[in-house]
C-alpha cells in the first residue's frame, strides 16, 4: 500500500449563514478555494490541470442547478474536460470522506494527485413546496381550458403555500431516530451529566482561542482572503464568526433551544449554521515529484469511519478514533493536536468523558483500557466550530488542514482530526509529520 500525503490546503473564510456569504453559490465558494489552492502550488495553473487524477468534493445540500457539484467546480476553476470529478456525501464528514477516498486511491496505486475538499452554502438551502402545494401545481398543469384553470385556482391551498418544508431543518434531523442534531446533544448532556456552565465555558474557550489565533495570524496560510462577488465591496480575511466580546454572562442569558424545560444546549454553546469551502491536495510520493518536488504538510497515517446509535451520534469521534488508533498502533497521548469538531459543546465534552472511561472502552469498543481524554490544551487549540462555524460539507477537510498546519507550526509528530456525523457515525484521520 502506497503512502498518501496531505500536500497543501486552502479554505475560504467561514461566515454564519445569512451573513456575508449568504448570496454566494457553493460552486463559487468551491471554485475560489480550489483556484487559490492550485495557484499556490507554483506548478502554473495552466499545467496543473494535466497533473491531477481526479477531483473529489464533499457537499450535503446539493444545489438543484449543480447536480454533481464537484464537476461543476472543477470546470469553473478552468480544469480540463478530461479530468473526472465526483461529489461525496457523508453528512457532516463529507469533507473527510473526500479526503479519505483520495487517500484510498493513492494508497491503492490508482492515481498520484487528487483534489479533495468540501463546500457548503447552508444559506442557500431551499424552501420546498409541501405535498399539497405540489398537488395544486399538478392540477394546474392538467388543466387545459380556461374554465379548468379557474377551477384549479379556486382550490388553491393558501395555507400550504405559507408552510413550506424547510430543507435545512429536515437535513439536520435524522429520520431514523426522528431526532434533530441538537436533541441528540441533549441526550448526551443528560446522560453524561454535562452542566450548562461547563458547556458555556467550553463555548467561550472556543471563541477566545479562535479570536487569538486570527489575531496572531495563525490562519494566514489556511484562509485565502475573499472579496465577495458580485460587488466585491466586502472582503473577508478571517472567519466572521468568532466573537472577541463573548462573555459567560451573555451565554448564560440564552434559553435552551432543543429542550425548553430541562435542556442545557443553547445556540451559544452549539455551532452556527455556516457557509464556506475548503480544498486539499492529496498525493503519492510520485505525485509530489510531479508537483515539482513540493514538501507535503503531513502523511495521512490512518483514516476510518464507524457507526453507532443515531440518537447518540455525538459520540461518533470516540468510535472512529478508536479505529484509527488501532490501525496505526498509536495512542491518544501521541496526538500533539486533536481537532474534534464542535457540533455542540455537550457533544465534545461527552466524547471526553467517553474517551476517559474504561467502562465505555470495554463495553462499546472492546478495549481493555480507556483511550484517554484529550489534554484540553491540545483540543482545538485554535478554536472550533462553535466559534468558526460548521459548513457541513467542508468541515471534514477544514479540520484536517487546521490540524496539519498546527503540527507544522509546533513541530508535532502526530495529529488527529475527528467528527461526529448526523445519522450515527464518526470519522477520524491521523496525520503524521514528514
Amino acid at each position, binding site marked *: 500500500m502506497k503512502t498518501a500525503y496531505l500536500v497543501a490546503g486552502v479554505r475560504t473564510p467561514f461566515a454564519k449563514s445569512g451573513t456575508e456569504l449568504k448570496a454566494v453559490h457553493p460552486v463559487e465558494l468551491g471554485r475560489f478555494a480550489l*483556484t487559490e489552492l492550485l495557484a499556490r502550488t507554483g*506548478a502554473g495553473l495552466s499545467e496543473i490541470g494535466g497533473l491531477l487524477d481526479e477531483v473529489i468534493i464533499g457537499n450535503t445540500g446539493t444545489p438543484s442547478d449543480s447536480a454533481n457539484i464537484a464537476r461543476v467546480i472543477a470546470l469553473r476553476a478552468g480544469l480540463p474536460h478530461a479530468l473526472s470529478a465526483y461529489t461525496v456525501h457523508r453528512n457532516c464528514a463529507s469533507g473527510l470522506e473526500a479526503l479519505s477516498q483520495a487517500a484510498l486511491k493513492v494508497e491503492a496505486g490508482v492515481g498520484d494527485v487528487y483534489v479533495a475538499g468540501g463546500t457548503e452554502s447552508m444559506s442557500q438551502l431551499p424552501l420546498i413546496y409541501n405535498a399539497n402545494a405540489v398537488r395544486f401545481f399538478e392540477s394546474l398543469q392538467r388543466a387545459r381550458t380556461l374554465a379548468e384553470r379557474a377551477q384549479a385556482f379556486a382550490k388553491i391551498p393558501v395555507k400550504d403555500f405559507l408552510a413550506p418544508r424547510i430543507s435545512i431543518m429536515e437535513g439536520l434531523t435524522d429520520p431514523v431516530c426522528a431526532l434533530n442534531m441538537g436533541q441528540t446533544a441533549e441526550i448526551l448532556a443528560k446522560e453524561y451529566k454535562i452542566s450548562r456552565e461547563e458547556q458555556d465555558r467550553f463555548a467561550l474557550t472556543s471563541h477566545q482561542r479562535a479570536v487569538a489565533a486570527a489575531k496572531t495570524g495563525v490562519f494566514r496560510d489556511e484562509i485565502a*482572503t475573499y*472579496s465577495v462577488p458580485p460587488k*466585491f465591496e466586502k472582503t473577508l480575511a478571517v472567519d466572521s464568526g468568532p466573537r472577541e466580546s463573548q462573555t459567560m454572562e451573555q451565554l448564560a442569558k440564552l434559553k435552551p433551544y432543543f429542550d425548553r424545560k430541562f435542556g442545557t444546549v443553547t445556540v451559544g454553546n452549539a455551532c452556527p449554521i455556516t457557509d464556506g469551502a475548503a480544498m486539499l491536495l492529496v498525493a503519492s510520493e510520485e505525485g509530489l515529484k510531479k508537483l515539482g518536488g513540493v514538501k507535503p504538510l503531513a502523511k495521512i497515517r490512518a483514516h476510518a469511519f464507524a457507526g453507532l446509535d443515531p440518537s447518540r451520534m455525538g459520540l461518533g469521534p470516540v468510535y472512529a478514533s478508536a479505529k484509527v488508533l488501532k490501525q496505526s498502533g498509536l495512542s491518544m497521548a501521541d496526538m500533539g493536536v486533536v481537532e474534534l469538531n464542535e457540533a455542540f459543546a455537550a457533544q465534545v465534552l461527552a466524547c471526553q468523558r467517553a474517551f476517559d472511561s474504561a467502562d465505555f472502552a470495554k463495553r462499546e469498543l472492546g478495549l481493555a483500557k480507556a483511550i484517554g481524554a484529550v489534554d484540553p490544551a491540545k483540543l482545538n487549540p485554535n478554536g472550533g466550530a462553535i466559534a468558526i462555524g460548521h459548513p457541513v460539507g467542508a468541515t471534514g477537510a477544514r479540520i484536517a488542514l487546521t490540524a496539519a498546519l498546527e503540527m507544522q507550526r509546533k513541530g508535532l509528530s502526530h495529529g488527529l482530526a475527528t467528527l461526529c456525523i448526523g445519522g450515527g457515525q464518526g470519522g477520524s484521520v491521523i496525520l503524521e509529520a514528514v
Partner: protein
Amino acid sequence: MSSDNLFSGQAFRLEQKGAVGVLTFDLKDERVNKLSEVPMNELASILDLLAAKAGTLGIKAVLVRSAKKNSFIVGADVNLIGSLPDRAAAEKAGRQGQAVYSKLEDLKIPTVAAVDGPCAGGGTELILACRHRLCSDNPKTAISLPEVKLGFLPGWGGTYRLPKTVGLMTAVDMMLTGKSIRADKAAKLGLVDLVVPAAIFEEKSLEIAARVAEGKGVPGAKPRVVPLTEKALTGNPIGRFVFFRKARDQVHASTGGRYPSPLRILDLLEQKSGLGREAYMDAEANAFADLWSSPESKSLVGLFLMGEAAKRDTGSELTPEAVAKLQATRSLLVLGAGVMGGGIAAVSAAAGVRTTLKDLNFDAIAKGLAHARSLFDADLRKKRITKTELERRMGLVRGQIDFRGVRATDLVIEAVVENIDVKKKVFAELEEQVSPTTVIATNTSSLRLKDMLPAFKDASRFIGLHFFNPVHKMPLVEVVTHPGASPEAVARGVAYVKSIGKTPVVCGDGPGFIVNRLLMPWLNEAAFCLWEGYPFEALERAAKDFGMPMGPFELLDEVGLDVAAKVCHIFHDAFGERAKPSPILDKLVADKSRLGRKTGLGFYVFDAPGGRKQGVDLKALEGVFAGAKPSSPEFNAEALVRRMFFPMVNEAARALKEGVVNDPAKVDLAMIFGTGFPPFRGGLLKWADSLGVDKIVAELERLGELHGARLQPSSALREIAKRGGFYRS
C-alpha cells in the same frame, strides 16, 4: 447520383448531383473566398451555361456553396478596390458585378445558397440574388454588408435586394452599421430561410436543394413576420418620411455628417426604391462610383489595408511561423490592481488568459475585481455575452498580495504608480520570483524604459506594453522596444496584444512613445491659444469640427490636469524649449480640487467626481488666466485647426527621423486607434500629405514668427517636404 464536372475553373466549379447543379466557390491557393475579376467572370460563364443547358442536363435547382472550411465568401478583394484607377473603372466594376448577380437572379431554375462561416459584402449580395438561403449554426456564421465601413455601399445589387428580403428597417440598420448577423438572428429577420446544424450542413443543404428541385419549398422555413412598427413606418409615405428623417438624424448624431456613405445609402433607398430593377441598378452604380471616388472612402480603404498589414506584422524580424512556436501568453500577472490593471485583467480574461492581479492589499484587489466584473456585467446587459460566459471570465481573474506561485507566469504587466524608483524596486523584486522565460512589460505612459533597465538582471525580456484608457474601449497598444530587447520578447508582446483583440503598434523608447508625444503639441498649443485669449468654446469646437472625438480641454480633463502637467514637464525636460508648457496647466493644477473629471472640476464642471460633464465655468477660468493678453485679434476655425494640429505633424516628423517609429502608417494607425484622430481624413500623416507638407512647413514658419519658436518647422519636417510627403520614400 452522378457527380459530373460541368465547369472547373480557378474559383468556381459546377457539378451535377441528380437534379441539382452544385456550384462550389473554391478560390485556388487561398484560405478564404474573395471576389475579383476571375471569379466573377467564371460565375458569369457558369450562369450562361446553366441558362442554356440546365433543361437538357436535367438540372432543376442550383446549390451555391463554399469549399472553404468555416468560411463562405468574405467579399470583394479590398486591395483590388483600392487599386482601381479612376471613377470610370469603379463604375464599370460596379455595373459588371450587378450584371452577374442579376443574371443569377434571372435564372429560371430555383437557387439555394448554403452559408457556413462568414459571408460579407459581395458574398452577401450573391446570396441575396438567390431564391433561397440556408445557413449553419456554426458560431462563425455571420452575414453582413460592411461596405459602409470602407466609405461606399453594397454596389452589386445589395441596396436593391436587401430591403426586399428583410424589410426596409433591417436593411437600413445592416447597411448603415455594417453589423454582422449571426445564424439565429438571420432566421428571425428572414435573411435566411432556415438554420441547419453545422455538423450535418453539407448533406442537409444538398437534400434541401434536391427537394427544391422537385418543386417543394425549403422545409421548416417560415415566412418573415413583419413587425407592426415596420408596417407603420415603411408601408406609407408619411411613415417613410418620418423613418428617413429619423435615420438621417441618427447618422448625423453618430458621424457628424462626416461620412457621405450612410447618407447616400438613405438617399438611394428613399428616392429610388420605386424604380424597376434596371433604373435602380443604374442609380446604385452611380452612387457606388461617386462614393468610391470620395476622399473619405479612400481614407477608410487605406486605413483598412493598414490595419490588415498591421495584423500580419509580427513586430520583429521573426516570421509568423517562428512566432507561432514561441510560448503563448496563457497566464498573466498584472502588478497594480487600479483602473488600468483591472481593465487589462478584464480584456485578458475575456480572451481566455488566466490573470492574477497583484497589489499591496486586498482592498485594492477588490476594486480591480469589481471593475472587471462591472465591465462583464455591461456586456451581459447588452447581450454580448451569456451568464455562463461571464462566470467563465470571472473564474479566470484572481488576486493576491504576494508573489506565491508566480514562477510559471508567461507575461507580467506592471501597472503600478508612475514613479521610476517604485517601478525599479518592483522589477528587481519581481525578477527574483519569475522564470527566465517570463516576459516582463511596463504599462508606463510617461517614463522611459531605458531608465528602468538597470533594475533588471536580464533586460532582454523587458518591453513596454502601453495600454490606453479605458482599456476595454481603446483598441491600441503601443509595444515599446529598446535596444536590448530580444525579438522573441517583442514578438510575444505583439502576439499577446493580438490575442486580446487589440491593435499593436511597435515603437521605440522615446518620451511619450508615439501617441502621447504627438498629442502633447496639440494640447499644449490649444492651451497657449487659450492663454492668448482665444474663446474657449471656439477652440473646443474647432477640434471637434476637425473630427476629434473630444476637444483639447475636454481631453485634458479626462486625462487629469495633474497628470497632463507632469507629462508636459517631462517632455519639456526631454525635448527642450519647443515643449515648454503653456502657463495654463500649472496655474490650474495649483488648485488641488481642480484636477479634471476625477475631482469633478477642471476646465469643465462635472456633476460629481468622475461624473458627467455639465458645462464650463468661463468666469472662473478667466479668473485663473488673469494676465493673459490676446495677441491675435482675428481668428477663424481653419486657422485654429492649422495652429493646433500642424505641431502634431511637426512632431511626427521628428519621431520618424529619430527612429522611434519606422513607418508613417504606424503613426496614422496609432493616432486613429489611440486618440480617435478622424478616420475619414485617412490618418494624421495622410492628411498632412494631402495638404502638401511644403505648405505645412510654410505655415509653421509663419506661425512661428507670430506665436513662438516652438512652432518652427523641424529639419525632419523640411526633409519630408523636400521628398514630397510622409508616404513618399
